[in-house]
């Protein structure tokens, strides 16, 4: 089967009012189409819609999802997404029409290249392609889902095995030999044919049909439980990772929070001690300012001219006047005596002069001035630090709300654990094959798959015996066994072959022998490693898928979005060199950040490359088909 993508058309899909991306040159799809789109313009949407066009799963979309394609803020009633493809050189146009009023979708398929001509309702791509495309996992391999890269390495997943079965057409073989597969159905038809004529045979036929119905129901239950168990386990793993990350983050935050609180406590103590010192110093007014000290000194000088107290000092003058000699040693005569008595009044005043003299003394004996500016600086600085810390504490307080999230997640995980146990218990009851365990669990053919298969075989044998079809029944069973062995052995040998080639490619892309695949089981197992980086994961996925595609009987396009974002420059170059050689057509939706090392490898190619840029313009988008614009485009991200 050869499939190519020719054109993508959007009408009223999110920001895309009316946009057509033509991936052809002279009606033929070009080898490499690079479509540059900033984040939020529609890369993921486009990938999703292309997948819906091929696997028909848009019919299962819920209303919320359908309305998510409606252009925001515009009153439009309908929208349309359309792809033009070629299947074994026959043109098909698949349209998904969105009714935004009723929140419904309708598929239309046109089998001619003329739009509107030969259009029929539904998805009808033809018998050549539909059996494979109905397998959602198959479509995800070439309309590449980035999540698949992670799943290929996840022990919970069966993606690697599924990919091999899908690409090497082994699913069709499985459909034949599986329980209730085509051989069983044919055998059932042969055994129950004409059963109406004999009452006993009719009875057996009815029982056999019921047992087949029961088996189908049990298989569906097993598939649902396995899927649920896988999802629950994945959810638990994911939640535990989140809890670990939050706990790590929260622990760091709590440590920072406690450090700040302790710092603030020290700062407060320093402020308290500096304030006490300041208060002590302020009790001495001369410490308050230099000006005050100067004023006080001036006051003391002026107070120097003040007089002596009358009651205490008059006697001194009288005694001095009566003395023969002055305190200075000169003799006191009559004339001096009169003068002392006469002028004594000039030096005498009221009694409160003592207080003033006390002030004078105090001012003269002022202690050395102590500077308070340093203390004020310390207090101010500490206050600033305290406020800053308080703001940080407040912010951290909000962030440590993650504690609530951890608690909430832990509770959810506990509930999931209950679900996990219930699912696992139900699965054990459903699939237990050991007789003793079956008896202990008290299961019957209506509740246990193994017993149901035995019951079907028993009734088939009885019916075959009654109808003389024993030989045919035995041959059918043997054919089933042979086909099953062919399938198992083919998968095993293919895996071995793919393993070697994948490891060669990984080494080539990553330029290292450190990362290798040791085994391809349900998933890919790494040699002596529990995990790899996102870029390495993607590189391994590219190496594995490109090996699968190179040997596959299908010729498919490889459609991928943001293929190089997590890769470093060296790996980007290798991926850019490797991918085109493995596919007949590559359509890449990328951001401007992926030009370096990836898109720039295609600039020099003179033909076989298209360079588109889709960017926001007003309330819609615009398309530029120009390599210079592509090279220089800067998004506003």
């Amino acid at each position: 089967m050869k499939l190519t993508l020719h054109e993508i058309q959007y009408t009223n899909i999110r920001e895309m009012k009316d946009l057509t991306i033509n991936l052809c040159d002279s009606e033929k799809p070009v080898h490499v189409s690079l479509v540059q789109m900033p984040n939020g313009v529609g890369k993921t949407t486009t990938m999703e819609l292309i997948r819906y066009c091929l696997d028909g799963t848009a019919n299962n979309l819920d209303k919320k999802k359908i309305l998510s394609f409606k252009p925001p803020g515009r009153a439009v009633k309908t929208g349309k997404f359309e792809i033009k493809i070629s299947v074994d050189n026959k043109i098909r146009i698949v349209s998904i029409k969105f009714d935004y009023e009723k929140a419904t979708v309708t598929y239309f398929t046109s089998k001619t290249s003329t739009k509107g001509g030969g259009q029929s309702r539904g998805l009808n791509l033809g018998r050549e392609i539909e059996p494979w495309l109905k397998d959602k996992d198959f479509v995800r391999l070439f309309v590449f889902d980035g999540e698949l890269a992670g799943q290929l390495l996840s022990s919970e997943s069966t993606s690697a095995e599924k990919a091999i079965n899908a690409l090497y057409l082994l699913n069709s073989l499985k459909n034949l030999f599986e329980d209730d597969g085509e051989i069983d159905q044919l055998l059932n038809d042969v055994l129950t044919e004409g059963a109406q004529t004999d009452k006993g045979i009719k009875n057996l036929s009815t029982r056999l049909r019921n047992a087949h119905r029961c088996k189908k129901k049990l298989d569906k239950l097993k598939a649902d439980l396995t899927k649920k168990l896988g999802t629950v386990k994945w959810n638990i793993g994911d939640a535990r990772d989140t809890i670990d990350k939050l706990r790590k983050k929260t622990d760091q935050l709590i440590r920072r929070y406690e450090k700040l609180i302790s710092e603030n406590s020290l700062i407060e103590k320093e402020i308290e001690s500096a304030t006490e010192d300041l208060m002590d110093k302020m009790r001495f007014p001369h410490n308050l300012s230099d000006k005050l000290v100067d004023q006080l000194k001036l006051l003391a000088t002026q107070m120097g001219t003040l007089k002596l107290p009358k009651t205490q000092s008059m006697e001194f003058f009288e005694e001095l006047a009566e003395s023969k000699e002055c305190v200075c040693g000169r003799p006191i005569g009559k004339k001096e005596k009169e003068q002392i008595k006469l002028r004594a009044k000039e030096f005498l005043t009221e009694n409160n002069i003592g207080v003033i003299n006390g002030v004078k003394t105090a001012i003269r004996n002022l202690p050395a001035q102590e500077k308070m500016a340093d203390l004020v600086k310390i207090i101010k600085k500490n206050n600033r630090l305290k406020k800053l810390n308080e703001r940080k504490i407040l912010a951290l307080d909000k962030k440590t709300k993650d504690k609530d999230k951890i608690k909430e997640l832990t509770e959810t995980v506990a509930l999931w654990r209950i679900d996990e146990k219930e699912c696992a218990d139900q699965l054990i009851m459903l699939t237990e094959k050991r007789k003793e365990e079956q008896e202990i669990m008290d299961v019957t053919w209506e509740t246990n798959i193994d017993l149901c298969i035995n019951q079907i075989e028993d009734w088939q044998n009885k019916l075959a015996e009654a109808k003389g079809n024993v030989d045919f029944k035995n041959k059918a069973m043997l054919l089933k066994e042979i086909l099953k062995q062919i399938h198992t052995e083919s998968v095993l040998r293919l895996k071995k072959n793919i393993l070697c080639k994948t490891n060669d490619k990984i080494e080539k892309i990553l330029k290292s022998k450190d990362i290798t695949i040791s085994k391809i089981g349900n998933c890919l197992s790494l040699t002596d490693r529990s995990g790899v980086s996102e870029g390495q994961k993607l590189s391994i996925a590219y190496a594995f898928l490109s090996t699968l595609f190179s040997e596959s009987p299908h010729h498919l396009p490889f459609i991928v979005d943001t293929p190089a974002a997590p890769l470093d420059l060296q790996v980007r170059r290798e991926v850019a060199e490797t991918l085109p050689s493995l596919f007949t057509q590559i359509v890449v939706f990328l951001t401007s950040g992926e030009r370096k090392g990836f898109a720039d490898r295609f600039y020099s190619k003179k033909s076989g490359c298209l360079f588109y840029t889709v960017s926001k313009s007003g309330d819609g988008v615009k398309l530029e088909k120009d390599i210079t614009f592509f090279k220089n485009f800067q998004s506003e991200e």
Partner: protein
Amino acid sequence: MKIVDKIIDKVIDDVLKKKKQPYTEEFKAFIRHVMMDNYKDYEIEDRINAIKIRSGGTKK
């Protein structure tokens, strides 16, 4: 012929030999039809009828 086809052909040979079954080429053609999803019900019936049962009946 692709390596994959060679691998599957070899597996068919090995399994049919192990199960002592005849008509290898026809069987291979049938498997190819099945894998390409291009077969009719009567082909399955023909294949069932072409299976050789060893004495002692089918081995489960």
